[in-house]
C-alpha cells in the first residue's frame, strides 16, 4: 500500500488523493507558535489559586501579603468583581467563587505578575480560611433524601436569576426523557430480553498542549483574546455577555492549538479571570496551565451509570431498548450534561429499534465536571448497545454478524428518532470489517478454545456506531461562511469561519476549493483564525467541519468559477458551460484545449474597463432541522456509520489485554484527503484504545488521585494495534463531493468491540471500563464486584 502523499498529475482530480497537511512543514520545523509561545510586549503572567477543599464555605481571604510582593500587578478575588455573571450551559458557574467552593478545581483568587515564578509565589502568600461542608461524593449520594445541596438556594436572589446567582432547591442539573414507539408493546413482542448495568468512567482529553489564553485590552478598550477555543464566534458572544461588553468590541484570534478533541467548546473560568486581570492591570496577561493543573481543572468525559434492557424476537429482530442513565454532573454544568442528546441517537437509532424509552438525570456533586469530548456520549451508549447486540445474538443462536446485518438499516430508512438515512453504508461497513478480518470463522474458533488449557486466549469482537455526519442543528444556525478572493497571480485566499484544530480542516477546505478552480494546492492561503476577518461558523464540533465548511467553501468557489467563466465566455465568444478551469488555465471543457492562463485572465479582468476583482462569499446552512420538544427530527444533513472488528489476546495470568488488530470500515461518504482521513481514523482508534484499556481518571470523593501522565496512562507507540482502515464511499448527495464527517467516529466503538472480543476469548462479559489488567483479572476470577443498579428517578 502506498502510504505516502501523492503528487497528482497536472489537471488530475485532487479528490481522494493523499494531500500533505498545509502547516506540516512549519510544525515539523518547530516554528509554529502556540499560545504558550506568544510573548506580547509588556505581557504579564497569571496564576490561579484553586480551592484546597472539596466542599466548603469561604470564611476569609487575605490577599494583602500577595499584593505587597514586588512584581505583582493585580490580585483578584470575587470581592473585586461583585457583578460577575455566571458562565456555562446552565449559568451556574461563577468564575471566582465568593461564598463557597464546590470542588477542588474551584477558582478562589488570581494573580497577575511580572513572571510565572512571582505569580506562583504570590499564590502561596494568599491566606484562605475554609469551613468544611459535607462532601457529596457521587450522583447517587446527591439524590438521596437529605443530601447536602451543591447549589443551595441563595436568599435574596432576584426572581428568575440563574442558578449561579440564585441556587436551586435540589441537586438535579438536567434531565432528559425520550421515547418512540410503545415500550409495553416492545416488551410483549420480545422472545428474549437481556438487562445489564454498565459503568463508564472518567477520562480526560490530555491534549499535548495545555490550556492557555492571552487577554489584552487595546487603547480603545476593545478586547483581544488569543484563545484556543473551538467555537470562536460563540465564545465572542458569550464573553460579551459575561463582561457586559458590546460583542463588536471583542476580537478573538486563534493561535494553532495543541489538540482540542472537544475540550475547548465551553467557556472556562480561567479565561474570564484572565480578561479581568488584563482589565485590572492594563497589560496583556497570559495564563497557562501546568500539566497537573490541566488534569485537575479540565473538563472530563461524562461518566455514566447506565442500565440497559434490550429485547428481540427469536428470529433476531430487535424489539425495544429501555435505558436509564445517571450522570454525575460535578459541581458545575458544562457540555457533559448534554451528552444525552447524542446518547439518545444511539439508543433510538443504532440498528432498527421499533420501541425505545430513555431517561437520564444529571446530578450535581462535588466532583470535577464533565465537558464535551470526541464522541460526546456516544462511546458510553455504544458500549452498552453493542454489548447487548452480542448477547441477543447469542441468546437467539445467531452469529453476531448476521444478527447485526438483520437489524442494520439501509438507505432510505428513517430512524425512530426521525433521522433520515439519505446515504447509508451501514451494512457495507459491517460486511467489509467482518470479511477483511475473517471475523466469523475466528469468532467460532476462539469461542471453541475458551476453555482449552492455555495461558493466552484470543478473542475477536465486532461493534458498530452511528454518529451525525452532516452537522448537528442544535444552535439556531449550523452554518459556516466562506469568503474567497483571487488575486492577480491566481493565488486564492480562502477565508473560512471553520477553525483548524489539528484535524486538517485547512487542508481539506483548500483541496475542495482547488478542485473547483483547477488550481494546485500551492495556490491557496487559508485565513481561519480571526473573528474580525472570518465569517461566522458555529464551531468545530459534531464532526461537522468537512461537511459544512466544505460545502461553504465549494459554494464560494463555484461562484468564483461562474464569474470567471462568464467573463471568459464573453471574451472567447462561447458558452460558459463549454469552458472549464483546469491546471491553472481556462480550457475548453470537451477538448481540454487551453485558452489562457487563469492568472493572466484575472489580471485582464482587473486592469481593464471591467476593473473587476474576483471576490465571492457563501454561507452554507445545511438542510437539517431542529429537533422538536420530544427530541425528534432530522437533526443532521447526513449520518455516518462505522464497524470495527477488534482482535485481542488476553493473558489469563495477569489480565493484560493486548489489542492485536483493528479492522475498521468507515462510511465516510467519499474520501477527500486520503492521508488526512487515515490519520483521523488511526488517531481516533488509538484514543478509543486508551478509553478501553488504559485511561482512567481516578476520582474519589471529589479528589483526582492520578493527575499526571505517570499514573494516567495514555497509549504509547509500541502498544498500538495493527490497523486496517477501509472506506465505504456511500456518496452522500448533500456532502461536499459526497463526503460526510468522520472526526469522532473512529473512537466511538473501540471499547464496545473490545468488550465483545474479551467475551469471545474468555466467556466473561465485563460491563465497566477500563479493561485494565486488574479489572480483567478480577472479572476472570469472579472477583469484580457487581455494579449497583442505576438509581431511577420517578418520571415527570
Amino acid at each position, binding site marked *: 500500500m502506498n502510504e505516502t502523499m501523492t503528487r497528482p498529475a497536472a489537471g488530475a482530480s485532487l479528490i481522494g488523493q493523499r494531500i500533505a497537511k498545509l502547516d506540516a512543514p512549519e510544525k515539523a520545523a518547530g516554528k509554529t507558535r502556540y499560545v504558550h509561545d506568544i510573548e506580547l510586549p509588556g505581557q504579564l503572567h497569571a496564576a490561579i489559586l484553586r480551592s484546597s477543599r472539596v466542599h466548603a464555605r469561604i470564611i476569609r481571604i487575605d490577599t494583602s501579603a500577595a499584593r505587597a510582593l514586588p512584581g505583582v500587578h493585580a490580585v483578584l478575588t470575587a470581592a473585586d468583581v461583585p457583578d460577575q455573571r455566571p458562565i456555562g450551559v446552565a449559568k451556574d458557574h461563577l468564575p471566582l467563587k465568593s461564598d463557597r467552593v464546590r470542588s477542588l478545581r474551584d477558582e478562589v483568587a488570581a494573580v497577575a505578575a511580572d513572571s510565572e515564578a512571582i505569580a506562583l509565589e504570590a499564590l502561596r502568600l494568599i491566606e484562605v480560611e475554609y469551613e468544611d461542608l459535607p462532601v457529596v461524593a457521587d450522583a447517587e449520594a446527591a439524590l438521596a433524601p437529605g443530601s447536602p445541596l451543591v447549589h443551595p438556594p441563595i436568599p435574596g436572589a432576584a426572581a428568575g436569576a440563574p442558578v449561579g446567582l440564585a441556587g436551586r432547591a435540589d441537586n438535579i442539573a438536567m434531565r432528559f426523557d425520550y421515547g418512540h414507539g410503545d415500550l409495553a408493546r416492545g416488551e410483549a413482542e420480545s422472545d428474549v430480553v437481556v438487562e445489564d448495568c454498565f459503568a463508564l468512567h472518567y477520562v480526560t482529553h490530555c491534549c499535548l498542549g495545555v490550556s492557555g489564553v492571552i487577554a489584552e485590552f487595546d487603547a480603545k478598550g476593545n478586547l483581544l483574546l488569543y484563545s484556543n477555543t473551538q467555537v470562536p464566534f460563540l465564545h465572542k458572544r458569550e464573553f460579551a455577555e459575561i463582561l457586559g461588553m458590546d460583542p463588536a468590541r471583542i476580537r478573538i484570534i486563534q493561535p494553532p492549538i495543541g489538540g482540542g478533541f472537544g475540550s475547548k467548546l465551553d467557556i472556562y473560568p480561567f479565561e474570564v479571570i484572565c480578561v479581568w486581570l488584563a482589565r485590572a492591570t492594563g497589560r496583556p496577561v497570559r495564563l497557562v496551565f501546568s500539566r497537573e493543573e490541566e488534569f485537575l481543572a479540565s473538563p472530563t468525559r461524562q461518566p455514566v451509570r447506565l442500565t440497559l434492557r434490550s429485547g428481540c424476537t427469536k428470529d433476531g429482530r430487535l424489539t425495544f431498548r429501555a435505558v436509564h442513565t445517571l450522570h454525575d454532573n460535578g459541581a458545575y454544568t458544562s457540555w457533559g450534561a448534554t451528552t444525552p442528546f447524542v446518547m439518545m441517537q444511539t439508543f433510538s437509532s443504532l440498528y432498527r429499534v421499533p420501541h425505545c424509552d430513555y431517561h437520564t438525570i444529571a446530578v450535581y456533586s462535588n466532583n470535577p465536571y464533565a465537558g464535551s469530548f470526541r464522541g460526546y456520549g456516544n462511546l458510553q451508549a455504544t458500549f452498552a448497545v453493542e454489548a447487548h447486540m452480542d448477547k441477543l445474538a447469542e441468546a437467539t443462536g445467531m452469529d453476531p454478524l448476521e444478527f447485526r446485518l438483520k437489524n442494520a438499516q439501509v438507505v432510505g430508512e428513517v430512524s425512530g428518532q426521525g433521522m433520515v438515512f439519505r446515504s447509508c453504508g451501514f451494512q457495507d461497513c459491517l460486511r467489509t470489517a467482518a470479511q477483511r478480518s475473517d471475523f466469523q470463522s475466528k469468532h467460532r474458533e476462539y469461542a471453541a478454545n475458551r476453555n482449552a488449557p492455555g495461558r493466552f486466549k484470543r478473542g475477536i469482537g465486532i461493534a458498530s456506531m452511528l454518529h451525525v455526519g452532516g452537522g448537528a442543528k442544535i444552535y439556531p444556525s449550523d452554518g459556516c461562511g466562506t469568503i474567497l478572493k483571487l488575486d492577480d497571480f491566481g493565488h486564492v485566499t480562502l477565508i473560512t469561519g471553520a477553525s483548524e484544530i489539528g484535524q486538517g480542516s485547512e487542508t481539506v477546505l483548500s483541496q475542495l476549493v482547488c478542485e473547483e478552480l483547477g488550481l494546485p494546492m500551492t495556490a491557496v492561503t487559508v485565513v481561519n483564525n480571526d473573528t474580525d476577518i472570518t465569517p461566522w461558523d458555529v464551531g468545530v464540533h459534531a464532526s461537522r467541519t468537512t461537511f459544512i465548511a466544505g460545502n461553504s467553501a465549494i459554494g464560494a468557489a463555484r461562484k468564483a468559477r461562474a464569474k470567471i467563466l462568464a467573463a471568459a465566455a464573453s471574451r472567447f465568444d462561447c458558452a460558459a458551460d463549454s469552458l472549464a478551469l483546469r491546471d491553472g488555465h481556462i480550457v475548453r471543457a470537451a477538448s481540454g484545449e487551453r485558452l489562457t492562463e487563469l492568472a493572466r485572465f484575472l489580471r485582464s479582468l482587473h486592469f481593464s474597463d471591467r476593473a473587476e476583482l474576483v471576490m465571492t462569499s457563501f454561507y452554507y446552512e445545511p438542510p437539517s432541522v431542529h429537533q422538536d420538544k420530544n427530541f425528534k427530527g432530522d437533526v443532521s444533513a447526513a449520518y455516518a456509520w462505522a464497524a470495527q472488528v477488534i482482535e485481542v489476546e488476553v493473558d489469563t495470568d495477569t489480565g493484560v489485554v493486548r489489542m492485536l488488530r483493528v479492522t475498521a470500515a468507515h462510511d465516510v461518504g467519499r474520501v477527500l484527503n486520503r492521508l488526512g482521513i487515515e490519520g483521523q481514523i488511526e488517531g481516533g482508534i488509538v484514543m478509543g484504545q486508551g478509553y478501553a484499556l*488504559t485511561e482512567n481518571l481516578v476520582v474519589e470523593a471529589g479528589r483526582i488521585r492520578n493527575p499526571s501522565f505517570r499514573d494516567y496512562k495514555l497509549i504509547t507507540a509500541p502498544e498500538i494495534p495493527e490497523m486496517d482502515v477501509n472506506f465505504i464511499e456511500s456518496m452522500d448527495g448533500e456532502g461536499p463531493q459526497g463526503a460526510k464527517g468522520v472526526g469522532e467516529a473512529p473512537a466511538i466503538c473501540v471499547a464496545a468491540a473490545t468488550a465483545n472480543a474479551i467475551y469471545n476469548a474468555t466467556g466473561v462479559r465485563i460491563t465497566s471500563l477500563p479493561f485494565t489488567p486488574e479489572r480483567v*483479572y478480577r472479572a476472570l476470577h469472579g472477583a469484580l464486584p457487581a455494579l449497583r443498579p442505576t438509581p431511577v428517578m420517578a418520571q415527570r
Partner: protein
Amino acid sequence: MNPAVQTSEDARRFGAEQVEHVDRMNPAVQTPEDYLAATSLVEALTALRAGASVCVLAGGTDLMPQLHAGRSKPARLLLNIRRVPGLDAIGIEADSLRIGALTTIAQLLVDPLLRTQAPLLAEAADHFASDQIRNAATLGGNVCNASPAGDMLTPLLALDAQVELAFLGGDGSARTRRLALDGFFTGPGSTQRKPHELLTALLVPLAPTGQVARFFKSGSRPALDISTISIAFSARRDAGGLLHGVRLALGAVAPTPLRARRTEALLEGKALDAALAAQAAASAAEEAKPIDDVRASAWYRRELLRNMTRRMLEDVART
C-alpha cells in the same frame, strides 16, 4: 524513575483529606542556595562532609520532579557529581563485575560485559522508562532513590549485589566501604548511605557456571509504567539440576525491594518441577506485603506475584 507511593502511610497521605491541594498544585520549589559541580571525587566528598545538607544530582530524572513537586528533602547545596571522573566505568574487579554509579541505564543496555556477566540487569534496563530517560538516569541514582518499585533494584538484589560507598577519610583522601545491597534499603526512599557518603559503584559477583536468571515486570505498557510488581530470580544449577544460591527478589510489594527468604529456602538445593514451582509461587505471594494504591490493589499484586513466579520457575524448570 519516579518514586512510587508505596507504603500504607504514603497511600493514606496520597488520598488523605489533609493534603493541601494548593500545595500540590503549587508547592514551594525547594531551592538550594548553592551549587557545585564537583570535578573530582575528593571535591565531592569534601562538599558532602561540610556539614550542611546536600542534595546529590546525577542524572536528575528523579530529582527534578521531586524538587518541583516539593517532595525532596530541603538542602542548602545542590551537588552535581556527573562530572566526577571514573564513576561510569564497567569492568571486572577480582571476582566481581564493577559498575560505576554514574553508569546510565542506556549504557547498561549495550555494555557487552554486562550482557554476559549480568544479563538480568540488561533485561531490566530494557524495561526502564523511555530512551530519553535511560540516556540520563544512572544506576546509582536508581539505587539511592530507593523506590519500592525501583526497576533496577530487584535484579541487583537477586544478583547479590554490593554497594560501594565513598567518604572522606581523616587524611583528606577518598575511602570506601562496601555493604550488601540486601539490607541497604531501610524504607521507601531511604538507605543505609550516610549523609556524607557517596555511592560510587555497584558490585555484582561474576556469573557462576550454571547460572539461571529471570526478570519479570508487570504492566501492559512495555516501559513507561511504574511496575505494579517486579520479580527477579537467580540461582546456580548444578549438573544434577539442583538449585543453589537461590535468590528471589520482589519489587513494589513491600516498603522496600524484598528478598523472599522463605521462598528461597523452599527452593534451595532442590530440582524445580511444576509442583515445586507452584508451591514456591504461593510462598512468594505470602511473603510479599503489598498495599492498595492508585496503581493496583494488594489482592491483585499477590495474584500477579503468585502467577508470574510460578510461570518464571516453570520456565526455569523447562530449560
